[in-house]
Protein backbone atom coordinates (compact mmCIF):
# COMPACT_ATOMS: atom_id res chain seq x y z
CA UNK A 1 0.00 0.00 0.00
CA UNK A 2 2.30 2.70 -1.23
CA UNK A 3 0.05 5.14 -2.98
CA UNK A 4 -1.46 8.20 -1.35
CA UNK A 5 -5.09 7.28 -1.96
CA UNK A 6 -4.76 3.76 -0.51
CA UNK A 7 -3.13 5.27 2.58
CA UNK A 8 -5.92 7.78 2.90
CA UNK A 9 -8.60 5.11 2.45
CA UNK A 10 -7.01 3.03 5.20
CA UNK A 11 -7.21 5.81 7.77
CA UNK A 12 -10.39 7.69 6.85
CA UNK A 13 -14.01 6.63 6.50
CA UNK A 14 -14.91 9.41 4.10
CA UNK A 15 -12.90 11.43 1.61
CA UNK A 16 -14.05 14.67 0.02
CA UNK A 17 -13.29 14.78 -3.70
CA UNK A 18 -13.58 17.87 -5.89
CA UNK A 19 -16.30 19.53 -7.94
CA UNK A 20 -16.66 20.71 -11.51
CA UNK A 21 -13.87 21.29 -13.98
CA UNK A 22 -15.57 22.25 -17.24
CA UNK A 23 -18.19 24.57 -15.80
CA UNK A 24 -15.54 26.26 -13.62
CA UNK A 25 -13.28 26.91 -16.60
CA UNK A 26 -16.14 28.53 -18.50
CA UNK A 27 -16.54 30.97 -15.70
CA UNK A 28 -12.88 31.86 -16.20
CA UNK A 29 -13.51 32.63 -19.83
CA UNK A 30 -12.94 29.37 -21.66
CA UNK A 31 -14.90 29.54 -24.90
CA UNK A 32 -17.48 26.89 -25.44
CA UNK A 33 -16.22 24.27 -27.84
CA UNK A 34 -12.56 24.93 -27.11
CA UNK A 35 -10.41 22.26 -25.53
CA UNK A 36 -9.96 22.81 -21.78
CA UNK A 37 -6.76 20.72 -21.89
CA UNK A 38 -4.95 23.31 -24.04
CA UNK A 39 -5.14 25.69 -21.09
CA UNK A 40 -2.73 23.46 -19.16
CA UNK A 41 -0.06 24.96 -21.41
CA UNK A 42 -1.65 28.19 -22.63
CA UNK A 43 -3.21 29.47 -19.40
CA UNK A 44 -1.56 27.60 -16.53
CA UNK A 45 -2.53 30.24 -13.96
CA UNK A 46 -6.18 29.51 -14.65
CA UNK A 47 -5.53 25.83 -14.08
CA UNK A 48 -3.73 26.64 -10.83
CA UNK A 49 -6.80 28.62 -9.77
CA UNK A 50 -9.03 25.73 -10.84
CA UNK A 51 -7.09 23.26 -8.65
CA UNK A 52 -6.76 25.65 -5.72
CA UNK A 53 -10.54 26.03 -5.54
CA UNK A 54 -11.27 22.55 -4.15
CA UNK A 55 -8.01 22.38 -2.16
CA UNK A 56 -8.85 25.61 -0.31
CA UNK A 57 -12.44 24.44 0.15
CA UNK A 58 -11.26 21.29 1.93
CA UNK A 59 -11.18 18.62 -0.76
CA UNK A 60 -8.86 15.70 -0.04
CA UNK A 61 -8.56 14.80 -3.69
CA UNK A 62 -8.92 16.65 -6.97
CA UNK A 63 -8.93 15.68 -10.62
CA UNK A 64 -6.56 17.02 -13.24
CA UNK A 65 -7.77 19.06 -16.20
CA UNK A 66 -7.24 16.18 -18.61
CA UNK A 67 -10.75 14.75 -19.05
CA UNK A 68 -10.64 15.08 -22.85
CA UNK A 69 -6.91 14.39 -23.06
CA UNK A 70 -7.04 11.28 -25.22
CA UNK A 71 -6.07 11.27 -28.88
CA UNK A 72 -9.65 10.80 -30.13
CA UNK A 73 -10.88 13.88 -28.31
CA UNK A 74 -7.82 16.07 -28.87
CA UNK A 75 -8.05 15.37 -32.59
CA UNK A 76 -10.99 17.77 -32.69
CA UNK A 77 -8.59 20.54 -31.80
CA UNK A 78 -5.81 19.18 -33.99
CA UNK A 79 -3.88 18.41 -30.80
CA UNK A 80 -3.78 14.61 -31.11
CA UNK A 81 0.03 14.78 -31.18
CA UNK A 82 0.13 16.53 -27.82
CA UNK A 83 -1.45 13.84 -25.63
CA UNK A 84 1.71 13.19 -23.60
CA UNK A 85 2.50 16.88 -23.13
CA UNK A 86 -0.97 18.13 -22.21
CA UNK A 87 -1.53 15.34 -19.69
CA UNK A 88 1.92 15.66 -18.17
CA UNK A 89 1.61 19.42 -17.72
CA UNK A 90 -1.93 19.14 -16.36
CA UNK A 91 -0.61 16.66 -13.79
CA UNK A 92 2.50 18.70 -12.95
CA UNK A 93 0.41 21.74 -12.07
CA UNK A 94 -1.77 19.48 -9.95
CA UNK A 95 1.28 18.14 -8.14
CA UNK A 96 2.51 21.67 -7.49
CA UNK A 97 -0.81 22.75 -5.93
CA UNK A 98 -1.27 19.55 -3.92
CA UNK A 99 2.25 19.61 -2.52
CA UNK A 100 1.82 23.23 -1.41
CA UNK A 101 -1.42 22.43 0.45
CA UNK A 102 0.21 21.69 3.79
CA UNK A 103 -1.78 18.45 4.16
CA UNK A 104 -2.19 15.34 2.07
CA UNK A 105 -4.14 16.05 -1.09
CA UNK A 106 -4.41 13.32 -3.71
CA UNK A 107 -3.87 14.26 -7.37
CA UNK A 108 -6.12 12.09 -9.54
CA UNK A 109 -5.41 12.00 -13.27
CA UNK A 110 -8.73 12.40 -15.06
CA UNK A 111 -9.36 10.17 -18.08
CA UNK A 112 -12.75 10.71 -19.76
CA UNK A 113 -14.28 8.64 -22.55
CA UNK A 114 -12.92 8.60 -26.10
CA UNK A 115 -16.33 9.64 -27.39
CA UNK A 116 -16.31 6.80 -29.88
CA UNK A 117 -18.49 3.73 -29.96
CA UNK A 118 -16.64 0.49 -29.30
CA UNK A 119 -16.65 -2.33 -31.86
CA UNK A 120 -18.62 -4.27 -33.01
CA UNK A 121 -21.35 -1.59 -32.79
CA UNK A 122 -18.90 1.18 -33.55
CA UNK A 123 -15.42 1.41 -35.00
CA UNK A 124 -13.18 1.71 -31.93
CA UNK A 125 -11.49 -1.62 -31.22
CA UNK A 126 -10.59 -2.67 -27.70
CA UNK A 127 -6.88 -2.70 -28.58
CA UNK A 128 -6.97 0.85 -29.93
CA UNK A 129 -8.88 2.06 -26.89
CA UNK A 130 -6.29 0.52 -24.55
CA UNK A 131 -3.55 2.17 -26.60
CA UNK A 132 -5.19 5.60 -26.42
CA UNK A 133 -5.76 5.38 -22.67
CA UNK A 134 -2.24 4.08 -22.12
CA UNK A 135 -0.76 7.05 -23.97
CA UNK A 136 -2.77 9.40 -21.75
CA UNK A 137 -2.03 7.46 -18.56
CA UNK A 138 1.70 7.55 -19.28
CA UNK A 139 1.54 11.34 -19.62
CA UNK A 140 -0.32 11.64 -16.34
CA UNK A 141 2.17 9.36 -14.63
CA UNK A 142 5.09 11.42 -15.94
CA UNK A 143 3.42 14.51 -14.46
CA UNK A 144 3.23 12.86 -11.05
CA UNK A 145 -0.41 11.92 -10.40
CA UNK A 146 -1.07 9.66 -7.40
CA UNK A 147 -3.84 7.72 -9.05
CA UNK A 148 -5.64 7.55 -12.40
CA UNK A 149 -9.29 8.56 -12.42
CA UNK A 150 -11.40 7.08 -15.20
CA UNK A 151 -14.74 8.91 -15.37
CA UNK A 152 -18.04 9.45 -17.17
CA UNK A 153 -17.81 6.11 -18.94
CA UNK A 154 -20.91 4.56 -20.54
CA UNK A 155 -19.63 1.32 -22.08
CA UNK A 156 -18.23 -1.49 -19.90
CA UNK A 157 -15.67 -2.37 -22.59
CA UNK A 158 -14.33 1.17 -22.50
CA UNK A 159 -13.99 0.99 -18.71
CA UNK A 160 -12.11 -2.29 -19.07
CA UNK A 161 -9.84 -0.79 -21.71
CA UNK A 162 -8.96 2.15 -19.45
CA UNK A 163 -8.41 -0.21 -16.52
CA UNK A 164 -6.04 -2.30 -18.59
CA UNK A 165 -4.15 0.85 -19.59
CA UNK A 166 -3.78 1.78 -15.90
CA UNK A 167 -2.34 -1.66 -15.25
CA UNK A 168 0.11 -1.28 -18.11
CA UNK A 169 1.56 1.98 -16.82
CA UNK A 170 1.58 0.59 -13.28
CA UNK A 171 -0.62 3.14 -11.53
CA UNK A 172 -3.58 2.46 -9.23
CA UNK A 173 -6.89 3.72 -10.58
CA UNK A 174 -10.46 4.58 -9.69
CA UNK A 175 -13.26 4.53 -12.24
CA UNK A 176 -16.79 5.90 -12.42
CA UNK A 177 -19.56 5.55 -14.96
CA UNK A 178 -22.29 8.02 -15.87
CA UNK A 179 -25.79 6.66 -15.25
CA UNK A 180 -27.80 9.12 -17.30
CA UNK A 181 -30.43 7.02 -19.11
CA UNK A 182 -33.34 5.79 -17.01
CA UNK A 183 -30.98 4.93 -14.16
CA UNK A 184 -28.53 3.08 -16.42
CA UNK A 185 -25.60 4.22 -18.53
CA UNK A 186 -26.36 5.16 -22.11
CA UNK A 187 -25.26 1.66 -23.06
CA UNK A 188 -27.70 0.06 -20.64
CA UNK A 189 -25.37 -0.83 -17.75
CA UNK A 190 -27.11 -0.86 -14.35
CA UNK A 191 -25.51 -0.28 -10.96
CA UNK A 192 -25.64 -4.03 -10.33
CA UNK A 193 -24.00 -4.76 -13.71
CA UNK A 194 -21.18 -2.40 -12.81
CA UNK A 195 -20.51 -4.10 -9.47
CA UNK A 196 -20.25 -7.42 -11.31
CA UNK A 197 -17.97 -5.98 -13.98
CA UNK A 198 -15.68 -4.28 -11.48
CA UNK A 199 -15.44 -7.49 -9.46
CA UNK A 200 -13.83 -9.24 -12.40
CA UNK A 201 -11.24 -6.61 -13.26
CA UNK A 202 -7.54 -7.25 -12.92
CA UNK A 203 -6.07 -4.97 -11.77
CA UNK A 204 -9.05 -4.01 -9.63
CA UNK A 205 -9.83 -0.33 -9.01
CA UNK A 206 -9.08 1.22 -5.60
CA UNK A 207 -12.63 2.55 -5.68
CA UNK A 208 -15.45 2.65 -8.22
CA UNK A 209 -18.72 4.47 -8.56
CA UNK A 210 -20.86 6.98 -10.40
CA UNK A 211 -20.35 10.53 -11.60
CA UNK A 212 -22.32 13.13 -13.56
CA UNK A 213 -25.45 11.50 -14.99
CA UNK A 214 -28.57 13.53 -14.32
CA UNK A 215 -29.42 14.95 -10.90
CA UNK A 216 -27.93 14.23 -7.49
CA UNK A 217 -30.93 12.12 -6.44
CA UNK A 218 -30.54 9.71 -9.38
CA UNK A 219 -26.88 9.36 -8.50
CA UNK A 220 -27.67 8.35 -4.94
CA UNK A 221 -30.17 5.77 -6.14
CA UNK A 222 -27.28 4.30 -8.15
CA UNK A 223 -25.03 4.33 -5.07
CA UNK A 224 -27.72 2.48 -3.12
CA UNK A 225 -27.76 -0.04 -5.96
CA UNK A 226 -23.98 -0.57 -5.66
CA UNK A 227 -24.26 -1.15 -1.93
CA UNK A 228 -27.24 -3.49 -2.26
CA UNK A 229 -25.38 -5.49 -4.89
CA UNK A 230 -22.79 -6.27 -2.24
CA UNK A 231 -19.96 -4.04 -3.45
CA UNK A 232 -16.81 -4.70 -1.45
CA UNK A 233 -14.64 -1.90 -2.77
CA UNK A 234 -15.04 1.74 -1.68
CA UNK A 235 -17.78 3.54 -3.57
CA UNK A 236 -17.39 6.94 -5.27
CA UNK A 237 -20.29 9.41 -5.54
CA UNK A 238 -19.72 12.48 -7.72
CA UNK A 239 -23.08 13.97 -8.55
CA UNK A 240 -24.04 17.14 -10.39
CA UNK A 241 -25.12 20.18 -8.42
CA UNK A 242 -28.69 20.01 -9.66
CA UNK A 243 -29.61 20.50 -13.30
CA UNK A 244 -28.09 22.96 -15.79
CA UNK A 245 -29.74 26.27 -16.51
CA UNK A 246 -28.60 29.04 -18.74
CA UNK A 247 -28.29 32.27 -16.78
CA UNK A 248 -26.75 35.46 -18.12
CA UNK A 249 -24.54 33.79 -20.64
CA UNK A 250 -23.33 31.04 -18.34
CA UNK A 251 -24.36 27.55 -17.45
CA UNK A 252 -25.62 27.58 -13.92
CA UNK A 253 -26.55 24.47 -11.97
CA UNK A 254 -29.51 25.00 -9.72
CA UNK A 255 -28.33 22.95 -6.71
CA UNK A 256 -27.47 25.24 -3.79
CA UNK A 257 -24.59 24.60 -1.34
CA UNK A 258 -27.23 23.59 1.23
CA UNK A 259 -28.65 20.97 -1.10
CA UNK A 260 -25.19 19.63 -1.89
CA UNK A 261 -24.42 19.46 1.84
CA UNK A 262 -27.50 17.23 2.25
CA UNK A 263 -26.38 15.24 -0.77
CA UNK A 264 -22.91 14.66 0.72
CA UNK A 265 -24.28 13.41 4.04
CA UNK A 266 -26.84 11.22 2.27
CA UNK A 267 -24.17 9.85 -0.08
CA UNK A 268 -22.19 8.65 2.92
CA UNK A 269 -25.32 7.11 4.43
CA UNK A 270 -25.94 5.35 1.11
CA UNK A 271 -22.54 3.70 1.39
CA UNK A 272 -20.19 6.02 -0.51
CA UNK A 273 -16.67 6.64 0.83
CA UNK A 274 -15.30 9.10 -1.73
CA UNK A 275 -17.78 11.92 -2.11
CA UNK A 276 -17.58 14.88 -4.42
CA UNK A 277 -19.53 16.84 -6.99
CA UNK A 278 -19.52 16.97 -10.74
CA UNK A 279 -20.86 19.63 -13.12
CA UNK A 280 -21.85 22.87 -11.39
CA UNK A 281 -20.16 22.04 -8.07
CA UNK A 282 -18.15 25.08 -6.95
CA UNK A 283 -15.76 25.55 -4.01
CA UNK A 284 -18.67 27.10 -2.14
CA UNK A 285 -20.61 23.84 -2.54
CA UNK A 286 -17.54 21.85 -1.47
CA UNK A 287 -17.17 23.89 1.70
CA UNK A 288 -20.76 23.14 2.67
CA UNK A 289 -20.22 19.45 1.82
CA UNK A 290 -17.08 19.30 3.97
CA UNK A 291 -18.89 20.85 6.88
CA UNK A 292 -21.77 18.41 6.55
CA UNK A 293 -19.43 15.41 6.45
CA UNK A 294 -17.53 16.66 9.47
CA UNK A 295 -20.44 17.70 11.65
CA UNK A 296 -23.41 15.50 10.80
CA UNK A 297 -23.69 12.06 12.32
CA UNK A 298 -23.61 9.05 10.05
CA UNK A 299 -27.07 7.55 9.53
CA UNK A 300 -28.71 4.47 8.10
CA UNK A 301 -29.06 4.15 4.35
CA UNK A 302 -31.91 6.49 3.38
CA UNK A 303 -35.07 5.31 1.66
CA UNK A 304 -35.72 6.49 -1.89
CA UNK A 305 -38.47 8.71 -0.51
CA UNK A 306 -36.06 10.46 1.79
CA UNK A 307 -33.65 11.08 -1.09
CA UNK A 308 -36.48 12.59 -3.12
CA UNK A 309 -37.58 14.77 -0.20
CA UNK A 310 -34.04 16.13 0.24
CA UNK A 311 -32.78 16.39 -3.33
CA UNK A 312 -35.77 16.23 -5.69
CA UNK A 313 -37.36 13.55 -7.85
CA UNK A 314 -35.75 10.87 -10.00
CA UNK A 315 -35.55 11.14 -13.79
CA UNK A 316 -37.10 7.69 -14.22
CA UNK A 317 -39.42 5.47 -12.18
CA UNK A 318 -36.90 2.65 -11.82
CA UNK A 319 -33.18 2.17 -12.39
CA UNK A 320 -33.27 -1.16 -14.19
CA UNK A 321 -32.18 -3.22 -11.17
CA UNK A 322 -35.65 -4.52 -10.34
CA UNK A 323 -38.22 -6.41 -12.39
CA UNK A 324 -40.93 -3.79 -12.11
CA UNK A 325 -39.56 -1.52 -14.81
CA UNK A 326 -41.25 -0.90 -18.15
CA UNK A 327 -41.32 -3.87 -20.51
CA UNK A 328 -42.46 -4.71 -23.98
CA UNK A 329 -44.44 -7.84 -24.62
CA UNK A 330 -42.75 -9.60 -27.54
CA UNK A 331 -44.29 -11.99 -29.97
CA UNK A 332 -40.83 -13.49 -29.98
CA UNK A 333 -41.27 -15.92 -32.82
CA UNK A 334 -37.69 -15.61 -33.95
CA UNK A 335 -36.45 -16.48 -30.51
CA UNK A 336 -32.88 -17.44 -31.18
CA UNK A 337 -32.20 -14.14 -32.84
CA UNK A 338 -32.99 -11.32 -30.52
CA UNK A 339 -33.40 -10.37 -26.92
CA UNK A 340 -36.87 -12.00 -27.06
Amino acid at each position, binding site marked *: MTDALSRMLSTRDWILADGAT*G*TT*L*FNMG*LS*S*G*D*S*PELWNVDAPDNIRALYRGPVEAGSDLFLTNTF*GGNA*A*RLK*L*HDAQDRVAELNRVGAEIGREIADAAGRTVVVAGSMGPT*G*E*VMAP*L*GTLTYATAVQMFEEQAAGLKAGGVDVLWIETI*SAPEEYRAAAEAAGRVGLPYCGTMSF*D*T*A*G*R*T*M*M*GTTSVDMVKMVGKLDPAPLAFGANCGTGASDLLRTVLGFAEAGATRPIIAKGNAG*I*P*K*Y*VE*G*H*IHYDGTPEVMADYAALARDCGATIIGGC*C*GTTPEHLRAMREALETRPRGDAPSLDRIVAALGGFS*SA*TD*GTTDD*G*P*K*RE*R*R*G*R*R*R*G*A*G*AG
Partner: protein
Amino acid sequence: MADEEEEIILSDLDDAELVEQMMDDLYDGLKDEITEGVNILLERGWAPYRILTEALVAGMTIVGKDFRDGILFVPEVLLAANAMKAGMSILKPLLAETGAPTIGRMVIGTVKGDIHDIGQNLVTMMMEGAGFEVKNIGINNPLENFIEAAGEFDADILGMSALLTTTMPYMKVVIDAMKEQGIRDDYIVLVGGAPLNEEFGRAIGADAYCRDAAVAVETAKEFMARRHNRVSA
Protein backbone atom coordinates in the same frame (compact mmCIF):
# COMPACT_ATOMS: atom_id res chain seq x y z
CA MET B 1 -28.67 -19.71 -34.30
CA ALA B 2 -28.77 -23.17 -32.81
CA ASP B 3 -31.53 -22.55 -30.31
CA GLU B 4 -33.92 -21.09 -32.86
CA GLU B 5 -37.32 -22.54 -32.13
CA GLU B 6 -38.98 -21.86 -35.40
CA GLU B 7 -37.56 -21.18 -38.82
CA ILE B 8 -39.46 -18.28 -40.33
CA ILE B 9 -39.71 -18.14 -44.10
CA LEU B 10 -40.54 -14.49 -44.74
CA SER B 11 -41.87 -15.12 -48.24
CA ASP B 12 -44.42 -17.59 -46.86
CA LEU B 13 -46.06 -14.92 -44.71
CA ASP B 14 -48.99 -12.89 -45.94
CA ASP B 15 -48.58 -9.12 -46.13
CA ALA B 16 -49.94 -8.37 -42.67
CA GLU B 17 -47.87 -11.09 -41.00
CA LEU B 18 -44.77 -10.07 -42.91
CA VAL B 19 -45.09 -6.44 -41.85
CA GLU B 20 -45.53 -7.52 -38.25
CA GLN B 21 -42.50 -9.79 -38.51
CA MET B 22 -40.47 -6.95 -40.05
CA MET B 23 -41.33 -4.72 -37.13
CA ASP B 24 -40.09 -7.45 -34.80
CA ASP B 25 -36.94 -7.94 -36.85
CA LEU B 26 -36.27 -4.22 -36.84
CA TYR B 27 -36.65 -4.26 -33.06
CA ASP B 28 -34.09 -7.06 -32.91
CA GLY B 29 -31.75 -5.28 -35.32
CA LEU B 30 -31.80 -8.02 -37.98
CA LYS B 31 -30.40 -6.29 -41.03
CA ASP B 32 -30.53 -9.16 -43.54
CA GLU B 33 -34.11 -10.02 -42.63
CA ILE B 34 -35.15 -6.39 -43.14
CA THR B 35 -33.48 -6.29 -46.54
CA GLU B 36 -35.29 -9.48 -47.50
CA GLY B 37 -38.63 -8.21 -46.21
CA VAL B 38 -38.37 -4.94 -48.12
CA ASN B 39 -37.57 -6.80 -51.33
CA ILE B 40 -40.49 -9.19 -50.87
CA LEU B 41 -42.93 -6.31 -50.38
CA LEU B 42 -41.55 -4.55 -53.45
CA GLU B 43 -42.04 -7.74 -55.46
CA ARG B 44 -45.59 -7.91 -54.20
CA GLY B 45 -46.18 -4.48 -55.68
CA TRP B 46 -46.09 -2.35 -52.54
CA ALA B 47 -45.22 1.31 -53.17
CA PRO B 48 -41.85 2.24 -51.62
CA TYR B 49 -43.50 4.95 -49.53
CA ARG B 50 -45.97 2.45 -48.09
CA ILE B 51 -43.15 0.06 -47.11
CA LEU B 52 -41.30 2.93 -45.52
CA THR B 53 -44.20 4.12 -43.42
CA GLU B 54 -46.10 0.93 -42.59
CA ALA B 55 -43.15 -1.37 -41.93
CA LEU B 56 -39.96 0.57 -41.25
CA VAL B 57 -41.19 3.79 -39.67
CA ALA B 58 -43.83 1.96 -37.67
CA GLY B 59 -41.14 -0.42 -36.42
CA MET B 60 -38.70 2.35 -35.58
CA THR B 61 -41.44 4.21 -33.73
CA ILE B 62 -41.69 1.28 -31.32
CA VAL B 63 -37.89 1.25 -30.96
CA GLY B 64 -37.97 5.01 -30.30
CA LYS B 65 -40.69 4.67 -27.67
CA ASP B 66 -38.87 1.89 -25.87
CA PHE B 67 -35.66 3.92 -25.93
CA ARG B 68 -37.53 6.81 -24.40
CA ASP B 69 -39.05 4.55 -21.75
CA GLY B 70 -35.77 2.94 -20.74
CA ILE B 71 -36.57 -0.50 -22.18
CA LEU B 72 -33.98 -0.31 -24.95
CA PHE B 73 -30.59 1.38 -24.73
CA VAL B 74 -28.09 2.72 -27.22
CA PRO B 75 -26.64 -0.64 -28.36
CA GLU B 76 -30.05 -2.04 -29.30
CA VAL B 77 -31.10 1.21 -30.94
CA LEU B 78 -27.90 1.33 -33.00
CA LEU B 79 -28.56 -2.21 -34.22
CA ALA B 80 -32.15 -1.34 -35.10
CA ALA B 81 -30.98 1.81 -36.87
CA ASN B 82 -28.52 -0.24 -38.91
CA ALA B 83 -31.29 -2.60 -39.95
CA MET B 84 -33.45 0.39 -40.85
CA LYS B 85 -30.58 1.81 -42.86
CA ALA B 86 -30.32 -1.41 -44.85
CA GLY B 87 -34.01 -1.14 -45.74
CA MET B 88 -33.69 2.56 -46.51
CA SER B 89 -30.80 2.00 -48.89
CA ILE B 90 -33.15 -0.02 -51.09
CA LEU B 91 -36.05 2.39 -50.77
CA LYS B 92 -34.25 5.73 -51.04
CA PRO B 93 -33.58 5.71 -54.81
CA LEU B 94 -37.10 4.40 -55.44
CA LEU B 95 -38.63 7.08 -53.25
CA ALA B 96 -36.76 9.74 -55.20
CA GLU B 97 -38.11 8.28 -58.48
CA THR B 98 -41.68 8.05 -57.30
CA GLY B 99 -41.67 11.55 -55.85
CA ALA B 100 -42.76 10.44 -52.40
CA PRO B 101 -43.70 13.38 -50.22
CA THR B 102 -40.97 15.07 -48.20
CA ILE B 103 -42.20 16.46 -44.93
CA GLY B 104 -39.30 18.83 -44.46
CA ARG B 105 -35.55 19.34 -44.74
CA MET B 106 -33.12 19.27 -41.84
CA VAL B 107 -29.45 19.96 -41.24
CA ILE B 108 -28.06 18.34 -38.11
CA GLY B 109 -24.64 18.28 -36.48
CA THR B 110 -22.69 18.11 -33.24
CA VAL B 111 -21.39 21.47 -32.02
CA LYS B 112 -17.77 22.52 -31.90
CA GLY B 113 -15.67 20.54 -29.44
CA ASP B 114 -18.14 17.68 -29.24
CA ILE B 115 -17.37 14.33 -30.76
CA HIS B 116 -20.46 12.48 -29.57
CA ASP B 117 -22.62 11.76 -32.57
CA ILE B 118 -24.63 8.74 -31.47
CA GLY B 119 -27.63 10.88 -30.67
CA GLN B 120 -27.67 12.84 -33.88
CA ASN B 121 -27.16 9.71 -35.95
CA LEU B 122 -30.23 8.22 -34.32
CA VAL B 123 -32.15 11.42 -34.99
CA THR B 124 -31.03 11.32 -38.62
CA MET B 125 -32.29 7.77 -39.06
CA MET B 126 -35.58 8.43 -37.36
CA MET B 127 -36.17 11.67 -39.25
CA GLU B 128 -35.39 10.03 -42.59
CA GLY B 129 -37.66 7.22 -41.58
CA ALA B 130 -40.41 9.71 -40.93
CA GLY B 131 -40.02 11.22 -44.39
CA PHE B 132 -37.65 14.13 -43.79
CA GLU B 133 -34.64 14.86 -45.95
CA VAL B 134 -31.66 15.10 -43.60
CA LYS B 135 -28.15 16.36 -44.12
CA ASN B 136 -25.96 15.17 -41.25
CA ILE B 137 -22.85 17.38 -41.11
CA GLY B 138 -21.09 15.24 -38.51
CA ILE B 139 -19.13 16.23 -35.44
CA ASN B 140 -17.27 19.28 -34.17
CA ASN B 141 -18.99 21.98 -36.22
CA PRO B 142 -18.18 25.66 -35.83
CA LEU B 143 -21.10 28.01 -36.39
CA GLU B 144 -20.13 28.70 -40.03
CA ASN B 145 -20.69 25.02 -40.86
CA PHE B 146 -24.22 25.06 -39.50
CA ILE B 147 -25.17 28.31 -41.20
CA GLU B 148 -23.64 27.42 -44.56
CA ALA B 149 -25.09 23.92 -44.62
CA ALA B 150 -28.55 25.16 -43.65
CA GLY B 151 -28.43 27.71 -46.49
CA GLU B 152 -27.05 25.34 -49.12
CA PHE B 153 -29.42 22.53 -48.21
CA ASP B 154 -32.39 24.90 -48.09
CA ALA B 155 -33.21 23.49 -44.68
CA ASP B 156 -36.40 24.07 -42.74
CA ILE B 157 -34.89 22.75 -39.55
CA LEU B 158 -31.50 23.17 -37.93
CA GLY B 159 -30.64 20.54 -35.35
CA MET B 160 -27.76 20.83 -32.90
CA SER B 161 -26.49 18.14 -30.59
CA ALA B 162 -24.11 18.19 -27.61
CA LEU B 163 -23.29 15.60 -24.98
CA LEU B 164 -20.96 17.66 -22.84
CA THR B 165 -21.64 20.47 -20.45
CA THR B 166 -18.52 22.05 -21.90
CA THR B 167 -19.96 22.18 -25.40
CA MET B 168 -23.67 22.78 -24.87
CA PRO B 169 -23.31 26.57 -24.47
CA TYR B 170 -21.97 26.67 -28.02
CA MET B 171 -25.51 26.15 -29.24
CA LYS B 172 -26.26 29.66 -28.09
CA VAL B 173 -23.24 30.97 -29.98
CA VAL B 174 -24.71 29.52 -33.17
CA ILE B 175 -28.19 30.88 -32.48
CA ASP B 176 -26.80 34.33 -31.62
CA ALA B 177 -24.85 34.40 -34.88
CA MET B 178 -28.02 33.49 -36.77
CA LYS B 179 -29.82 36.36 -35.07
CA GLU B 180 -27.05 38.76 -35.98
CA GLN B 181 -27.27 37.70 -39.60
CA GLY B 182 -31.04 38.08 -39.51
CA ILE B 183 -31.66 34.45 -40.44
CA ARG B 184 -32.73 33.00 -37.10
CA ASP B 185 -36.40 32.93 -37.99
CA ASP B 186 -35.78 31.25 -41.33
CA TYR B 187 -35.27 28.00 -39.45
CA ILE B 188 -36.84 25.83 -36.82
CA VAL B 189 -33.99 25.30 -34.36
CA LEU B 190 -34.08 22.05 -32.41
CA VAL B 191 -31.50 21.08 -29.79
CA GLY B 192 -30.77 17.86 -27.99
CA GLY B 193 -28.23 15.95 -25.92
CA ALA B 194 -27.98 14.30 -22.52
CA PRO B 195 -27.15 17.32 -20.31
CA LEU B 196 -29.78 19.60 -21.87
CA ASN B 197 -33.31 20.27 -20.73
CA GLU B 198 -36.33 22.19 -21.87
CA GLU B 199 -35.53 25.29 -19.90
CA PHE B 200 -32.02 25.39 -21.33
CA GLY B 201 -33.44 25.14 -24.84
CA ARG B 202 -35.72 28.09 -24.19
CA ALA B 203 -33.01 30.16 -22.51
CA ILE B 204 -30.62 29.94 -25.46
CA GLY B 205 -33.38 30.79 -27.94
CA ALA B 206 -34.00 27.43 -29.59
CA ASP B 207 -37.51 26.55 -30.74
CA ALA B 208 -37.50 23.31 -28.80
CA TYR B 209 -35.44 20.86 -26.83
CA CYS B 210 -35.96 17.23 -27.85
CA ARG B 211 -35.10 14.67 -25.20
CA ASP B 212 -34.65 11.82 -27.66
CA ALA B 213 -34.88 10.88 -31.31
CA ALA B 214 -38.55 9.95 -31.13
CA VAL B 215 -39.43 13.30 -29.58
CA ALA B 216 -37.31 15.04 -32.22
CA VAL B 217 -39.45 13.51 -34.96
CA GLU B 218 -42.71 14.42 -33.24
CA THR B 219 -41.51 17.96 -32.56
CA ALA B 220 -40.24 18.45 -36.11
CA LYS B 221 -43.57 17.29 -37.55
CA GLU B 222 -45.48 19.60 -35.27
CA PHE B 223 -43.39 22.63 -36.19
CA MET B 224 -43.60 21.82 -39.91
CA ALA B 225 -47.38 21.57 -39.67
CA ARG B 226 -47.54 24.93 -37.91
CA ARG B 227 -45.24 26.43 -40.50
CA HIS B 228 -47.42 25.17 -43.36
CA ASN B 229 -50.49 26.59 -41.67
CA ARG B 230 -48.78 29.92 -41.29
CA VAL B 231 -47.67 30.00 -44.92
CA SER B 232 -51.11 29.11 -46.24
CA ALA B 233 -52.94 31.50 -43.91
